[in-house]
């Protein structure tokens, strides 16, 4: 029997450090897409709170804390990141396992916003896109989920199959931003 070793989407690609910037991979245990049934949004939010300690996030927001987060993930869609979903949630929403399906990267350091601004059309100004704000958008022509984790820290997610391309593009942009600093 062959013993297969699990490999994260960005294994061998990160961590990357360029000047004050670093690109790291977060490999959460579970990722579950939660699509609330019509009229069940409030009940789902209560169930999420009871089971995982955070209410359902509003549009463009993230709730929870490091280790157990709920991310707004598109029209009537929430992504639960970290814990395995509580079985009781199926009463209020359709769940689908996304674990290992998405690459989760963290871009940190002075100029992180400038790097992302080269890759996405999102308005990333701190007054418009604050800590805990999240968006689905285009990142280097790939469908992405972008979240501000701090003043100079962002989470960037793309499909696992695009991980190497995203790291490649980010590396180039990081070099160019640092060269101008």
């Amino acid at each position, binding site marked *: 029997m062959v013993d297969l070793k699990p490999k994260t989407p960005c294994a061998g690609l990160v961590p990357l450090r360029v000047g004050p910037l670093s690109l790291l991979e977060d490999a959460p245990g579970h990722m579950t897409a939660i699509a609330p049934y019509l009229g069940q949004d409030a009940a789902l939010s209560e169930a999420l709170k009871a089971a995982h300690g955070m209410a359902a996030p509003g*549009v*463009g927001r993230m709730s929870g804390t490091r280790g157990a987060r709920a991310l707004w993930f*598109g*029209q009537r*869609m929430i992504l639960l990141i970290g814990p395995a979903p509580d079985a009781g949630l199926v009463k209020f929403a359709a769940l689908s396992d996304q674990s290992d399906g998405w690459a989760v990267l963290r871009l940190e350091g002075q100029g992180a916003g400038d790097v992302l601004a080269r890759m996405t*059309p*999102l308005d990333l100004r701190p007054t418009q896109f604050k800590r805990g704000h999240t*968006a*689905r*958008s*285009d990142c280097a022509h790939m*469908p992405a989920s972008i979240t501000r984790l701090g003043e100079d820290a962002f989470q960037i997610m793309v499909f696992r199959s695009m991980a190497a391309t995203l790291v490649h593009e980010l590396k180039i942009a990081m070099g160019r931003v640092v060269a101008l600093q």
Partner: protein
Amino acid sequence: MRLPCPICGARDRREFTYRGAAVALERPDAEAGPEAWDDYVHNRDNPAGVTRDLWYHEQGCAAWIVVTRNTATHEVLGSILASEARRAGSAS
């Protein structure tokens, strides 16, 4: 060009995919007859002025939306979710 997504707010055009006139939301009844179906499938107005188009926020929240814009001035006048437009029966 920026389009107002009813869910996400103003977003760059490159996040959207264009479908065409919002007439696609008014599918005729199966028994409606050849003229109604001819209009639905083939015939489109080409207005110099206000028009309503279907767009898909593909690189964003994945909502279908109806955007009202002016082809003469390029002004974008507003948008609603396609599901709401259909419910309101005002997709013409």
